[in-house]
């Protein structure tokens, strides 16, 4: 029940951020959009506006990675899973209107929060990838957790900024996954 109310507030706050941006979203806006009183919002987010805005970023980041996990769930093997993840996540970042708008107009709070969340986000992706690495032969001296951590970091780096890679081009993504990304498995 409490979780439902929390979720409802975050959903409403996200809708406010989409309309007004991070800086202009207030507790009052979120309360009105959620159909709740200000006092209720403060009960769940005692830190007020700043806490609500920070948590909305973490909440949407969590949803983003849940969508990513669902999108790659059917992949037949590890290289295919990583390919699908890169293609899907790149497209999802590019077409995420709220993210793109905030990056253009008010990146400071967003990037600050993503930096605070970086450990958790690497952890999310790592835990998701871990079973795949437990199922394949690994290079000497490196455990599945270490390899999964490395690959998670590089996947996140590519999602954030593709650099020289065109992540809409399947052939390039295949090459990238099998050459750079899965390099640690190539010596086994």
């Amino acid at each position, binding site marked *: 029940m409490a979780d439902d109310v929390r979720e409802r507030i975050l959903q409403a706050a996200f809708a406010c951020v989409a309309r007004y941006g991070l800086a202009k979203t207030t507790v009052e806006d979120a309360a009105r959009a959620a159909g709740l009183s200000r006092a209720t919002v403060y009960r769940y987010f005692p830190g007020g506006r700043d806490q609500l805005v920070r948590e909305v970023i973490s909440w949407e980041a969590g949803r983003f990675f849940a969508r990513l996990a669902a999108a790659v769930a059917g992949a037949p093997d590890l290289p295919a899973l990583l390919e699908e993840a890169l293609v899907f996540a790149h497209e999802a970042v590019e077409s995420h209107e709220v993210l793109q708008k905030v990056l253009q107009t008010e990146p400071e709070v967003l990037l*600050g929060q993503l930096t605070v969340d970086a450990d958790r986000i690497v952890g999310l992706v790592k835990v998701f990838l871990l079973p795949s690495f437990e199922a394949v032969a690994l290079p000497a001296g490196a455990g599945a957790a270490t390899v999964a951590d490395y690959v998670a970091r590089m996947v*996140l780096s590519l999602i954030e*900024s593709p650099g020289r890679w065109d992540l809409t081009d399947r052939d390039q993504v295949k090459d990238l996954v099998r050459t750079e990304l899965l390099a640690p498995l190539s010596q086994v």
Partner: protein
Amino acid sequence: MTMAPIEEAPAAGPPEPAQRVVDAALRCIARWGLAKTTLDDVAREAGYSRATVYRMFPGGKDGLVQAVAAEEVRRFFAGLAVVLDGAGTLEELLVGGMTEAARRVQGHTALQFLLAHELGAVLPHVAFANKAGVFDAAGAFARPYLERWMAPEQAARAAEWVTRVLLSYVACPAEDVDMTDAESVRALVRTFVLPGLRRPAAVDSSL
């Protein structure tokens, strides 16, 4: 943003006036941050009059900040070049370069102040789409060194990949990796990076 520690500035003779102002600005930023540093503070710290500093940096504080950033990037790569010039193998090049880069970032007191207290002054310049600028600068610098061991196309790929690895572990440290420790970086390079660089760039269908 990549900046070298001020104490490692080229030590040949007394610094040029502009360098003296840049160094004074770095000390101010390390002490109070960017937002609270004024051109007056920097002039006082450098031992110049306000008018002299304004004459040197007609763009005011913004112009000075840009000059400081450009100078620190220059010093960062100059310091890195000393290490890379001495590398005898590809492994030494990667280990030496990454370790030195991480040490320079962590030892840069002005940059560390900003990362701790004024993230907004740094992050937007180096995140998401703007990370392309970091890849470009790092690539232009590292490619000629990497080309001693690989074809130009592969060197460009490798430069970007190594930059990604470095940025990830410096920005978000892993429990078991210390990027300022050469042996820790060597393990990372041997296990994760080198195998990718030594393979042909073509798709390996056996994987």
